[in-house]
């Protein structure tokens, strides 16, 4: 008889729980009032800013803790709190908060790019435009360059600031490739035919494997055609078909005759260092240098690119729309993209990363320092890497290309 009472109580409690959340909608204080960078510096004094981002890279973490955080305290009296969180979790948190109607959150500065930026923009999770209020953007970066305007083909509109770059780089053992590295898809096919089972790639949707497939497609049909194609399955298939045909042609000569693929880049590296396959790849330009210094790869391992270029993209910094300390966040982004901090980041100790700067805007001295840093590590020179770059295809096309690969190559 009392069953109804129990269910009533349950339902009542449920409602009261949801009710708690709806009333705390206060206006954010500094929403539109920051006019310039100097204004942001004034307003940010004494604030505490959080930096949310991927934390799997120890060296990048150390850079934030040892270089950026003390500099922020000293120069601007702003405290920085680094919060390790993967980008998809950050976005999930932001979308859930938005759905719940929250106006203020803990997330201030976010490390983001590409597909995730597309998601964040789609759901209107970011604050901006911010690039005009960041000094180092105007001073050091190629303001009109592709990377400042498009992120994976998605219009940036000033909502994020370039932070670091990434480029697909191949790794091979010089001694295995006696006639030189395969610097194009045709050479790669010939090598695979002559050495069956020694080449493979990680199966999309694995991030880097997906980039490899796009790179092969762009190498064969040309980036412009993929860029111009309409973002629907039928049209895109017609355009990229030669690329998919190539992947089918090379398939029988792949590891395990292409019947299966490794699923993570860690596995690809492991197979490479065990001599099971002859080529590995990474989105980090300094991958070979790092693996060589860890003694995981042989000292004869070197990086190479395709002559027509490999896919490159930037990663960016953005501010969450729900941030309570937008002034402080702007100052933090400026510091993280400053010349002094980025030159530190380029050192071996902090992971050899490549600054997002336009070399024409840097002093000769700075350019020389950067060149010296990357010498004799089995990695390519900055000029060569910048010469052989192709931009990312539009984010919305990536899932379609992955689906087409699945349909026409994997399940062929």
């Amino acid at each position, binding site marked *: 008889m*009392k069953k109804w009472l*129990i269910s009533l*109580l*349950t339902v009542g*409690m*449920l409602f009261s*729980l949801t009710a708690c959340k709806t009333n705390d909608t206060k206006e954010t204080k500094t929403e539109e009032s920051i006019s310039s960078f100097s204004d942001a510096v004034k307003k940010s004094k004494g604030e505490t800013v959080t930096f949310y981002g991927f934390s799997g890279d120890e060296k990048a973490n150390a850079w934030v803790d040892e270089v950026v955080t003390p500099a922020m305290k000293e120069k601007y009296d702003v405290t920085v709190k680094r919060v390790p969180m993967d980008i*998809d979790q950050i976005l999930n948190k932001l*979308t859930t908060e*938005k*759905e719940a109607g929250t106006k203020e959150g803990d997330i201030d500065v976010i490390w983001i790019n*590409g*597909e*995730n930026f*597309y*998601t964040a923009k*789609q*759901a209107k999770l970011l604050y901006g435009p911010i690039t005009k209020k960041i000094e180092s953007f105007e001073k050091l970066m190629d303001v009109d360059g592709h990377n400042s305007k498009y992120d994976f083909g998605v219009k940036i509109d000033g909502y994020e600031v370039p932070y670091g770059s990434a480029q697909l780089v191949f790794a091979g053992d010089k001694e295995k490739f006696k006639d030189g590295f395969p610097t194009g898809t045709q050479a790669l096919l010939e090598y695979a035919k002559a050495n069956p*089972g020694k080449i493979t790639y990680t*199966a999309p*949707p694995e991030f880097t494997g997906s980039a490899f497939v796009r790179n092969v497609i762009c190498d064969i049909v040309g980036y412009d055609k993929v860029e111009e194609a309409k973002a629907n399955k039928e049209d895109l298939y017609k355009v990229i078909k030669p690329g998919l045909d190539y992947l089918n042609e090379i398939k029988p000569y792949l590891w*395990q005759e292409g*019947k*299966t*693929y*490794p*699923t*993570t880049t860690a*596995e690809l590296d*492991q*197979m490479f260092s*065990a*001599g*099971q396959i002859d080529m590995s790849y990474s989105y980090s330009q300094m991958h070979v240098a790092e693996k060589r210094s860890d003694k995981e790869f042989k000292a004869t391992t070197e990086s190479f690119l395709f002559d027509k270029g490999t896919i490159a993209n930037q990663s960016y910094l953005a501010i969450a729309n729900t941030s309570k300390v937008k002034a402080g966040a702007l100052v933090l982004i400026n510091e993280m993209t400053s010349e002094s901090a980025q030159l530190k980041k380029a050192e071996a100790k902090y992971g050899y990363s490549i600054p997002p700067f336009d070399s024409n805007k840097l002093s000769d001295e700075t350019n020389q320092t950067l060149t010296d840093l990357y010498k004799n590590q089995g990695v390519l020179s900055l000029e060569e890497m910048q010469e052989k770059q192709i931009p990312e295809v539009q*984010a*919305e096309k*990536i*899932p379609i290309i992955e689906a087409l690969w*699945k*349909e026409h190559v*994997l*399940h062929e």
Partner: protein
Amino acid sequence: MNKRKLLVVPFLLLNSVVILAALFKGLQISLGYYPLIGLNKISLTNYQQVLSDPFFQKSLGYSCYLALTATFLSLLAGVGLSFLLIRVRKSWLHKIISLPISLPHIIVALMVMQLISQSGIISRLFFQLGLIKEIDHFPLLIHDSGGFGIIFVFLYKEIPYVAVTTFAILQQLQLGYIEVAKNLGASTTRIFFSVILPMLQKTLITLFIILFCFTFASFEVPYLLGNPSNQTVALTAYDLFTQADLTTRPQAFALNLVISGICLVITFVALTISRILPGGRKKP
């Protein structure tokens, strides 16, 4: 009854908030109501899209194959092992067998990968001993089309679980029910159907439900050890959910609800079978 039933309220509340709220939200999004990206028309298109996908049937078949193989083998081996435990009453043996239960699936999956992949420990050992000329000659046990690695992980985790659970039931059997039946002149078949099966079947069916639902919807093990061309349903749902394009998320939720539906149907069928079998009917 009042006081005792009221004590259940906190438990019910917790579960209703966590499970029902999530389920309701999932149902809402799967039906196409996702205001965050401007979708607010209720329809069944997401379900249609997911179910009519050409690879859906294939992946459903593969998921069923993995789950059923792993479940039946675990039940068989687990019951066998518990009989062994009852014969050999050594506490250290009991401890060793219950050890894998405490390890997370993802850790076991990584262990197995390091152990039996072609560039793994065993393969390298064979290579050093000269048993194989190249590590490529070691059989492909990870990312293979039969899902050997995945089933191996499930067996390693689930057999001890079944063994430890049925062990408790078998101890009751030791109480002498079988001897009593024999004394009263029952045949071996009679003993099996009237004594052993009624006592064991409920536990076994419950274990079947737990194991099947778990392995069917398991994500991390097939993700790490699976063959990309044989995707499980859970992996497809994950792919749909993590796409950059938020518009595929409703499909991911639809697929998740389809998975939950399948598990519910299997549970219902298994429980019905359990009721029909001897020992399942309600006692007066």
